[in-house]
């Protein structure tokens, strides 16, 4: 199905969530907005009684300001020209005594507002509480009432104070609440109404579904012009303008914009945008509202680019951009770290992903959508995939099972280092390839490029792997922990690149690959020297220092490393025997004609990691098949064995 149709369907599947506020982590509220409505943050709440008399008013706290307001197509996209919202709006529209307190205004905002409100009240769909609001506002005393109630403040000339200055502070004491919630002056305050009728629980008009329904029906009535909808294929009232503010409340860009007549877009074959394509009002509203809701709920934003994954029936899907560890979080699963077999690990991934599978719907789809704007006005879909849920989960599972390595950079909830086996998060891949200070533009580009690798099982672009290998080969330039993180992520990427050869974290002593063997030798040299240096000595070993050169010219650099570790071998005496024997063993596996200066492939990192990991795992632990407790920072593992 097309993207808009899928969004529309998502809305229809979640109609029970319409108008229900949920809280995000940062305490901001969001909701699936009904048709013909939008959200605004209100500053002042006015309470009225059932007869349309003023009761009280208060300034609203910033976190509670989010208000669902009815809106028309024209008001939703108003700019500088005054177009009133139907019910809640700024003072300039709702207050009849605005001119008295704030001076002249352009146009006739209040009259327009009252006219629109009256036609709603008088329509067959009018609502009794909305009539109360109309009755009260017709008196034209709103600002006067608010001033009397000490919500708004006037200066000596009887005008609203524009700015709370230090002089006023000295004169009148503490800063009133209204100046804390409004950035500009008081006249820009946005008003919402509550009507208290005895016996009715919901007085807040912006939370009352019957008011929302009343407006939806009233507005539907006013839409007369029907046209063929390109999404639903039905003859329905047609949407002239489409929603903006999709990614966030300050975002002016639209997914469907129809005002572009300066570029070569549709002209030539069509004269007007309407000739080129039409979308019905209902579909446009519902689809856009669903999209906004989804972005608030589960979208990830990097430098303005929104990454969004959802299921049309059940919204929550495992995040393809997350690492394997984050998959386990929802489960009570304790990730088995260390040298667990690949089969065991694969089972674990299967269990974690399996949780999303059998909810009874086999034909359900998963949508992956990436949105970004090249210019401020227009939003573009940069990536879109519509996948069968089972296929999506299969692919995701395959990704976690093939692009995997052993990682130690994650911390658990109680701030303990965790060893887990699995795939790294896409964002971490970006940092591994381009460094922790990588520009957001590069990160978002990489995430988009990685998506096909995860979702379609395509090869990881070579430049990404190469860049990560280069960074992992240069430990001297990085902090210890950062290098370890880069190394394990790079190993995962390299492992994925050489997927067919089936490398595992556990050391493969049979592998005769030149790069792998060189990597193992480097690891032995590293562990040997580390052990000789002892626990206190923190400086980098020769092996680590020459790693970069070693990757480029292994044979020549190896002679340097070997001569440099000579003193340590001598210092350790017989203790070095095991390492020496191992070195000879690995060296013997290396064919003489392979002992050249040809640069090493990324595989040497796997050899390095596996060999080092093997040496740091004590014999005893190897026998029972579990990993020893390893302390990342101290790197004290050299003492064991």
């Amino acid at each position, binding site marked *: *199905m*097309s*993207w*808009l*149709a899928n969004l529309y369907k998502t809305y229809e599947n979640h109609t029970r969530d319409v108008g229900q506020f949920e809280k995000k982590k940062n305490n901001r509220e969001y909701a699936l907005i009904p048709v013909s409505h939008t959200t605004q943050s209100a500053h002042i709440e006015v309470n009225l009684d059932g007869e349309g008399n003023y009761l009280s008013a208060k300034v609203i706290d910033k976190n509670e300001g989010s208000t669902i307001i009815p809106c028309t197509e024209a008001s939703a996209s108003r700019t500088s020209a005054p177009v009133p919202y139907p019910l809640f709006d700024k003072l300039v529209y709702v207050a009849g005594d605005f001119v008295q307190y704030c001076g002249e205004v352009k146009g006739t905002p209040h009259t327009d507002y009252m006219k629109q409100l009256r036609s709603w009240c008088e329509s067959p769909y009018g609502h009794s509480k909305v009539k109360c609001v109309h009755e009260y506002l017709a008196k034209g005393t709103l600002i006067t009432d608010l001033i009397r109630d000490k919500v708004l403040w006037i200066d000596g000339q009887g005008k609203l104070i524009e700015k709370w200055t230090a002089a006023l502070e000295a004169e009148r004491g503490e800063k009133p609440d209204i100046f804390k919630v409004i950035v500009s002056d008081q006249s820009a305050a946005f008003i919402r109404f509550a009507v208290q009728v005895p016996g009715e629980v919901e007085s807040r008009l912006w939370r009352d579904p019957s008011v929302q329904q009343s407006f939806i029906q009233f507005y539907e009535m006013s839409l007369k012009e029907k*046209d*063929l*909808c*390109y*999404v*639903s*294929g039905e003859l329905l009232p047609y949407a002239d303008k489409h929603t903006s503010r999709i990614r966030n409340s300050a975002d002016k860009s*639209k*997914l*469907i*914009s*129809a005002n*572009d007549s*300066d*570029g*070569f*877009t*549709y002209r030539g*074959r*069509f*004269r007007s*945008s309407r*000739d*080129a*394509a*039409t*979308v019905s009002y209902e579909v446009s509203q519902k689809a856009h509202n669903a999209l906004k809701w989804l972005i608030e709920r589960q979208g990830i934003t990097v430098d303005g680019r929104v990454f969004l994954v959802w299921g049309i029936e059940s919204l929550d899907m495992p995040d393809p951009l997350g690492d394997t560890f984050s998959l386990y979080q929802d489960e009570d699963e304790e990730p088995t770290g260390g040298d667990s077999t690949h089969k065991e690990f694969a089972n674990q991934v299967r269990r974690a992903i399996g949780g999303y599978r059998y909810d009874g719907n086999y034909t359900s789809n998963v949508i992956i959508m990436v949105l*970004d704007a*090249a*210019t401020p006005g*227009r*939003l*573009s*879909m*940069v*990536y*879109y*995939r*519509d996948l*069968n849920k089972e296929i999506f989960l299969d692919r995701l599972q395959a990704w976690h099972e093939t692009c995997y390595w052993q990682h130690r950079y994650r911390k658990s909830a109680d701030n303990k280092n965790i060893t887990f086996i699995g795939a790294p998060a896409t964002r971490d891949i970006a940092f591994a390839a381009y460094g922790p200070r990588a520009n957001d533009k590069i990160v978002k580009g990489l995430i*988009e490029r990685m998506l*096909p690798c995860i979702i*379609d099982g395509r090869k990881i672009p070579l430049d990404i792997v190469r860049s990560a290998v280069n960074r992992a080969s240069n430990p001297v330039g990085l902090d210890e922990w950062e290098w370890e993180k880069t190394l394990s992520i790079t190993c995962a990427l390299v492992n994925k690149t050489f997927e067919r050869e089936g490398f595992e974290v556990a050391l493969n002593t049979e592998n005769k690959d030149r790069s792998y063997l060189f990597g193992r030798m480097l690891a032995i040299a590293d562990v040997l020297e580390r052990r000789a240096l002892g626990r206190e000595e923190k400086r980098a070993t020769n092996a680590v220092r020459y790693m970069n050169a070693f990757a480029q010219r292994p044979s020549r650099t190896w002679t340097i490393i070997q001569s440099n570790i000579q003193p340590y071998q001598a210092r350790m005496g017989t203790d070095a025997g095991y390492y020496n024997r191992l070195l000879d063993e690995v060296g013997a596996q290396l064919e003489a004609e392979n002992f050249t200066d040809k640069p090493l492939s990324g595989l040497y990192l796997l050899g390095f990691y596996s060999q080092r990991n093997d040496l740091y795992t004590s014999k005893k632990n190897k026998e029972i098949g579990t990993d020893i407790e390893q302390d990342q920072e101290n790197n004290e593992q050299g003492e064991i064995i």
Partner: protein
Amino acid sequence: MRNQIEFEVSGRYALFTDPLTKLGGEKFSYQVPSYESLKGIVESIYWKPTLTWVVDEVRVMKFIQTESKGIRPIEYSGGNTLAYYTYLKDVHYQVRAHFEFNPHREDLMYDRNEFKHHNIAKRAVKAGGRRDIFLGTRECQGYVEPCVFGEGAGDYDEVPEIDFGTMVHGISYPDETGRKERETRLWRAKMQHGIIRFIRPEECTLVRKTGEGAVKAFSSANMQDVDSLYEEMFVDGGSE
């Protein structure tokens, strides 16, 4: 079917613009080619005003993948702007189409020679088309080769059905309908085991008028018939 040709068309990119994204200029491709874009490809292979091509079916051979690119579109009044276009990547289709004589072209009645046109069309497929082939938009070059429809393995062979919802089927031009109107046709596209079977243009029920036009008239003033050309070239009946 009579007068049928079968060919495969492939390319690195394709952009069958979704009309909704065309308005603003941030073009985004349909997941599969529309009837009209395939008809355009067939017409690039071989066309005469005498004929109308009918696309019967298309088989999607490769997984649908998208890739976005930053594009600098041309503005009417000059200046710079930037847009993201999202293309289909690495596409490969098998197409089956046949021609019929255009009933609204009575002026070209004398040219209705089935064998001639069918043989020319088959030769044109073998040659990779008479004009340049493009997949949706001009920047997406396509390549045509003869094939046997349904042969070879496709990536969607095992997928029972994918519903693409409402899509543009194509545009009816005056010389195909005989009316002085340009109409846009919509239909509900479905792919079964990788194959989309198109309904015929006149079977589309969702049609809206999107412009006017007129039929171009052909006469001896702007067209020469092949027999008179032959006589002109070979005065003696070509016996030499």
